[in-house]
């Protein structure tokens, strides 16, 4: 069967409908049975006229990374699209507005800068939008029409996707969008002589059943609701805001409460407070907010109060680059704050695992009475996939409280020493369960205890939880080895893992003896599995989106070997091609 694998980028200015055009394209392609992965980038300003790019990878087979360069660039805005040309493949396809409303000054047209190898199609986007709807708003739909016509996509099916997207809008909005699309489609069929060879025609895909088209933030919110979250406190921050936005609408319907606090310090304070009170609570933030929360993260660990923080990473440090993706909070998530402060850190490796990680995070926080940090990043938060509807958590995941027995309550010790480090927790109000909670070092009853022996024993107890957590952690994903050993082992985490597994699979086809390893569990890390894996690889490559190689430093400490690093912080997600290129060099 013909294999389809194409990346289409739509580039425009905020307000030009770039993102919604990308969304419609994704929806339609998903309805046709394709795998999609799409990712938007937009200006940092909350309301602005900056550059927006909707990046969509469409494939007839399974994909795990967004694709590095685009095969097609649709330029809704010439000025912004000029810089986007560097992300267009040599020999790629450019669709531009051939009759813009105003003339371009010299060097201000995207066509003017297109590489000579590019196949360009001029479509009068503005003119056709004007004709279809009497204004220029429909240029994005005209462009979709052009794409659909050029690549032989179903005219009627596409129209249905547009109608579905605007179903809640007034009829006039639906009509003008549909008409603009049709105008673009028909004009292109009549006027454009196709010079490239790409087509979706002749692909027959097995129906894949109903798919959920969803991003990581939406899945985190859905998972929290399904996992019986009862309290959320937070302060909005890109790229995590959407989680709060969804929960603010949905949580009350699930019997929960959402509190928008004045800042992140009070948000985590409220979450720890709710955790103390015995209900499932969480917050979501990004680097700058996480930084403010560190004092309370220590309290959560020290006082053994469940708390869940979703940190969707963005460019840092400080306010950093709000709308660019990065994996540079690894150290902060593991080591933020003072003292020896063992917490649990999970990092989903793809969109679907955002759901599972959230369910697991709430469970682990409750059971182990500690802080759980779930590391997403801008890419995972916002990239859209079409996935199967996740399986709802079973009852064992919904209540993980380790309650004190009657025996325990006779002489209740809130911080009783146990083999697994978990002390049965009496929820406030439990008769006989009076407890002291404090940030001070304490004894088994929670009374301040500054003795060296006491501090050591409590530190050991808190760290003992790690060994127990590991037993419940999802196992690392390890690709098959061809034979006993691999020349290159790629170890990855978070949103780079998909690209790493895809790169290794492609590398193997090219004859490179490679294997890959990724783990959702970052802290405690499955060190033994890592050592075993690394022991079978002659060279280790660690790709990650941060400057210093934060995870690579960690891994080197464990495997006691130099690794090759692949780091970049361009704001772009890791693509399989990036890793493959590095592997070919090694």
């Amino acid at each position, binding site marked *: 069967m013909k294999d389809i694998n194409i990346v289409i980028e739509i580039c425009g200015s905020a307000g030009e409908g770039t993102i919604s055009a990308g969304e419609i394209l994704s929806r339609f392609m998903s309805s046709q049975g394709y795998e999609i992965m799409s990712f938007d980038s937009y200006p940092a300003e909350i309301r602005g006229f900056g550059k927006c790019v909707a990046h969509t990878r469409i494939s007839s087979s399974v994909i795990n990374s967004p694709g590095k360069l685009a095969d097609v660039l649709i330029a809704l805005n010439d000025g912004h699209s000029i810089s986007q040309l560097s992300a267009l493949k040599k020999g790629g396809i450019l669709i*531009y*507005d*051939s*009759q*813009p409303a*105003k*003339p*371009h*000054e*010299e*060097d*201000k*047209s995207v*066509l*003017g800068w*297109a*590489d*000579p*190898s590019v*196949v*360009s199609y*001029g479509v009068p986007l503005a003119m056709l939008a004007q004709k279809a709807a009497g204004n220029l708003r429909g240029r994005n739909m005209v462009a979709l029409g052009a794409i659909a016509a050029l690549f032989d996509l179903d005219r009627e099916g596409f129209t249905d996707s547009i109608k579905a997207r605007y179903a809640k809008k007034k009829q006039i909005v639906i009509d003008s969008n549909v008409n603009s699309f049709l105008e673009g489609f028909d004009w292109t069929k009549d006027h454009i*002589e196709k*010079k490239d060879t790409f087509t979706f025609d002749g692909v027959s895909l097995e129906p894949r059943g109903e798919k959920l088209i969803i991003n990581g933030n939406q899945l985190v919110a859905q998972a929290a609701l399904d996992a019986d979250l009862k309290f959320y406190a937070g302060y909005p921050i890109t790229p995590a805001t959407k989680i709060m936005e969804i929960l603010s609408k949905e949580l009350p319907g699930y019997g929960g409460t959402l509190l928008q606090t004045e800042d992140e310090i009070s948000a985590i304070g409220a979450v720890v407070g709710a955790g103390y009170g015995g209900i499932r609570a969480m917050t979501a933030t990004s680097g700058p907010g996480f930084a403010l929360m560190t004092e309370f993260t220590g309290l959560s660990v020290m006082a053994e109060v469940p708390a869940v923080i979703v940190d969707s990473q963005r460019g840092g440090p400080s306010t950093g680059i709000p709308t660019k993706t990065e994996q540079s909070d690894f150290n902060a998530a593991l080591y933020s704050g003072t003292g020896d402060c063992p917490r649990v850190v999970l990092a989903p490796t793809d969109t679907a695992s955002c759901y599972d990680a959230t369910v697991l995070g709430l469970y682990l926080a409750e059971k182990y009475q500690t802080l759980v940090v779930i590391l997403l990043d801008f890419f995972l938060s916002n990239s859209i996939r079409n996935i199967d509807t996740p399986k709802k958590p079973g009852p064992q995941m919904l209540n993980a409280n380790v309650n004190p027995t009657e025996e325990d309550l006779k002489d209740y010790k809130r911080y009783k020493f146990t083999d697994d480090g978990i002390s049965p927790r009496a929820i406030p109000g439990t008769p006989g369960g009076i407890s002291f909670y404090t940030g001070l070092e304490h004894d088994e009853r929670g009374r301040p205890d500054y003795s060296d022996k006491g501090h050591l024993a409590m530190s050991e107890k808190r760290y003992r939880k790690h060994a127990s957590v590991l037993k419940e952690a999802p196992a690392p994903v390890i690709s098959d080895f061809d034979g006993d050993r691999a020349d290159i082992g790629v170890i990855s985490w978070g949103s780079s893992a998909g690209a790493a597994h895809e790169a290794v699979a492609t590398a193997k086809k090219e004859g490179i003896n490679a294997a890959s390893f990724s783990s959702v569990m970052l802290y405690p890390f499955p060190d033994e599995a890592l050592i075993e894996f690394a022991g079978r690889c002659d060279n280790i490559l660690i790709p990650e989106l941060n400057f210093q190689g934060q995870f690579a430093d960690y891994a080197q400490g464990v495997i006691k070997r130099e690794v090759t690093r692949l780091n970049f912080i361009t704001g772009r997600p890791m693509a399989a091609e990036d890793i493959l290129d590095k592997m070919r060099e090694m």
Partner: protein
Amino acid sequence: MPANDHYVIIGNGPAGNHAASTLRDKDKDAKITIVSDEAIPFYYKPRLTRYILDEIDAKDLMVKQLSSYSDSGIRLRLGQPVDRIDPDSKTVFLHHKEEIHYTKLIIATGSRARVLPTMRSYSDCLKFISSYDQVMEYKDDIKQAKRFFIFGGDLVAFTFVRLLSKMNKQVSLLIYPNAFWPFNLNEEMEAAIAQSLKGLSVDLLVKDDIKAIAESGNGYRVRTTKGKELNVDMVFSFNGLIPSVEFARGCGLDIDHGILVSETMQTNIPDIYACGSCAQIYNPDINTYTTSIGWPNAVAQGEVAAMNLLGDHKVIESAGRKYFDLEGVKVKTTWWEDIEERA
């Protein structure tokens, strides 16, 4: 600091390319831009016929690697037709509504297929071979078609006829000896040509003319003045080339068939030069302007235009005389060259 000069060249054929490389050789700092309406990079037009037959592939059509432009700092704007120029503001208006400014301009827009005035009413039925896009448009149809009608006659026509014959196509060829391009055929030439076509599956029509062409089924019906009726799949017109200069008309440039230039390739407007087959060059010997023909002339003129644009005062000399083999007739030319020998 004054901005660098911007030399804009319209046309990506041999004249435009040689002008650009000469400019770059002599002026390392200037901004140089080539603008072309064709989306394909600089290619050998003379090889188009062999490309139809798949004797060569697309790669063999190319004259230069694309990287050589970026390496030498020449900006190549492909697929960007020029709609008009305004010499007063020194602006070139591109079809996609971008305006580019030049300090000096070289027009090297070449030529396109000539349609005889008597044939204009049939132009929907006619096919031409003068550009890559045209060839791409009919390449597959030519392979499918069985019967061809070819009329007029120019230097390219014979290559095409031989090619069709090699493909075992049935060809009717109507030659206009008095309108052969770019020179008339004398009786001796005509006879020699007839002789050389013997043995090929070509039906030669002489001293006849087209009376009408009409669509018929998937093909065409051609009627001649002598009463012949032919049903064919494709009709090709080979009547030479005429300068592509429409976009320049009305801007103040002196234009006859082509853009009129002195022997130094200078137009009547300062800072604008024209060269190659879009130009009509003053010939002091006969005190008239003659159109320029062929690849070697385009090359030589591109170089001269570039040198003079930079302040030199070179007069164009005819390229060296060569014998060109036209179906067994040795034609002595300064303008046509066997590209296959050169490549």
